[in-house]
């Protein structure tokens, strides 16, 4: 029997029992559609997270102090206070660290910000003027922290958009006084609202000169007596220079800290952060896919079930075909191609349905979370191949049973 005839015969058998074929198909359709749409959500989430991190700014390295060990207990990364403002300034050295384009140290504290009868508890970040460009935080009105204010430890504050809204409503707060932890500050600017994601955190924070934070709002001196910082954000001149920059930074800091053995700082890149997060979200995507695959498996079992019924029902037909000269292989191929066509058809409809579903969900929000979906052709191809494979796998046993039937017994079957 040639392939084309086999295909035609299979199609006509499928068409002979439309309702049953349709229901069997539905099992695969639901399976494939859920794989496609869940994978699209997973991938969308992954892309959103990556985009989020890239929005922090480009070509960033983060230098953090190492951990402290007290009484045999080692604290977390960044718990030590060995990194100083002077270390950060040293990284701007064009000779020792030529790849570094800009350096923005930061130090954080929390505090109560009060304006009139309104108040809010928030995170306060001590920054230098570079911070605006390195971390990509544009100002909506007023101005950012200046070098003059850093030098004079001025009580100047830039409010996050939501903080401004809480304290001042829709009035422009620039020039207004606020109190932070009991101290009088002057609002010099308001940040542009950044919406969701990591960058959106700035909406709820306030920025002050790093020296002000250190001397007026918190005080923890380093062993060396300098201003300790928690993170130094370093912008590198180009993405190619990243690896070299890590070395340059390490060399400068080792020299300054007179380190010969274990570093008391860590340098992580934005890239590494993305990779770590991608590894995490990959688990999530695979997990979603695995859950969806269960329904695909159930669909496959449905195909097997219906093929077994079909073989029993068509025992006589098999007997007739065998009497007319059909070989085992002909019967086997007929039933296998029926099962494969069923599941491949279901896969095709499932891909379309999955595509429609992921389009439909794209940009919808459920419980405050906005879905972002990314439909990918490779997943669609994979789903098609897998559904054909499922038909093949679950169709082969019923087909084998059909092919094995003895023609006389099959012809006598009532």
């Amino acid at each position: 029997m040639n392939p084309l005839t086999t295909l035609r015969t299979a199609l006509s058998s499928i068409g002979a029992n439309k309702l049953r074929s349709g229901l069997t198909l539905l099992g695969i359709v639901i399976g494939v559609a859920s794989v496609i749409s869940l994978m699209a959500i997973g991938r969308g989430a992954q892309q959103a997270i990556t985009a989020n991190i890239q929005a922090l700014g480009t070509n960033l390295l983060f230098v953090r102090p190492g951990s402290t060990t007290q009484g045999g207990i080692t604290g977390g990364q960044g718990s030590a206070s060995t990194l100083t403002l002077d270390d950060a300034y040293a990284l701007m050295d064009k000779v020792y660290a030529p790849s570094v384009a800009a350096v923005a140290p930061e130090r954080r504290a929390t505090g109560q910000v009060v304006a009139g009868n309104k108040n809010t508890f928030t995170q306060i970040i001590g920054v230098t003027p570079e911070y605006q460009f390195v971390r990509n935080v544009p100002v909506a009105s007023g101005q950012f922290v200046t070098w003059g204010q850093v030098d004079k430890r001025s009580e100047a504050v830039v409010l996050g958009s939501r903080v401004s809204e809480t304290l001042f409503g829709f009035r422009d707060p620039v020039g207004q006084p606020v109190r932070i932890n009991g101290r009088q500050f002057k609002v010099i600017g308001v940040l542009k609202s950044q919406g969701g994601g990591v960058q959106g955190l700035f909406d709820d924070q306030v920025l002050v000169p790093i020296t002000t934070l250190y001397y007026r709002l918190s005080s923890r001196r380093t062993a060396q007596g300098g201003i300790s910082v928690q993170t130094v954000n370093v912008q590198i001149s180009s993405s190619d220079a990243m690896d070299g920059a890590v070395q340059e930074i390490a060399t400068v800091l080792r020299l300054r800290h007179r380190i010969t053995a274990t570093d008391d700082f860590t340098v992580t890149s934005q890239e590494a952060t993305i990779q770590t997060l991608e590894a995490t979200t990959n688990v999530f995507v695979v997990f979603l896919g695995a859950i969806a695959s269960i329904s695909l498996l159930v669909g496959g079992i449905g195909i097997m079930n219906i093929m077994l019924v079909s073989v029993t029902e068509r025992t006589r037909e098999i007997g007739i075909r065998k009497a007319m000269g059909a070989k085992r292989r002909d019967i086997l191929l007929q039933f296998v191609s029926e099962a494969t066509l069923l599941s491949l058809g279901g896969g095709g409809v499932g891909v379309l349905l999955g595509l429609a579903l992921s389009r439909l969900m794209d940009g919808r929000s459920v419980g405050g979370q906005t879905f972002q979906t990314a439909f990918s052709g490779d997943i669609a191809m994979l789903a098609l191949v897998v559904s054909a494979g499922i038909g093949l796998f679950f169709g082969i046993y019923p087909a084998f049973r059909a092919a094995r039937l003895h023609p006389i017994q099959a012809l006598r079957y009532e």
Partner: protein
Amino acid sequence: MIELENVSKVYRMGNMEVAALQGVSLTIQEGEMMAIMGPSGSGKSTMMNVLGCLDVPTSGRYVLEGEEVGRLGDDRLAEIRNRKIGFVFQTYNLLHRLTALGNVELPLLYGNGQNRRKRALEALERVGLGPRANHRPAELSGGEQQRVGIARALVKNPSILLADEPTGNLDSRSSYEIIAILQRLNREEGLTVIIVTHEPDIAEHTQRVVSMLDGRVVKDEPVREPRLAAGGDAGMEGQRQ
């Protein structure tokens, strides 16, 4: 030519062995039209299955047109059935979702099948059903369905046409039409026709009657004056419609 030499067939049913055929020897010449008769359990169905290559004998030789077919495997047997044997069944055994034409095409799907439509249509015309080619079995009378069955048996130009109680489900008028078609094919085209029946009336239309009992041939004699079935040109009527 068909030669059966000391053919036995033993079926195993649990611990019992049932001998359906016990040392049957029979020679059938090309172009013969014969009947195999006998009560149920006489072994005539087993005989039919062996002759039709649906089953192989337990012992003995079966030579079909010079080829020993008694020891062949399933796939080779399927090939022989496809090329050399045309089956006509009591219950027609047509596939209901296919048209008459589709049913007749069936044997052409297996083995080499060029010009399937044309050949199937020719076969239908030989039994006078050309105009009903696109009807499904449910839209045809019993006699017409059996004619489709005969066309399907003819389409590969087989060496033998094996008919198992071909008139068992038909009224007498349709029965004679069917017998008439078989007689015409035998007379005009020299087709070897073997009819398995338990009706003496049908057997009298053939040239030779082999009677079986308990798995043995008990009588094998020619019919002195074979009757000619009326309605022998039923096919022709069909073509004129």
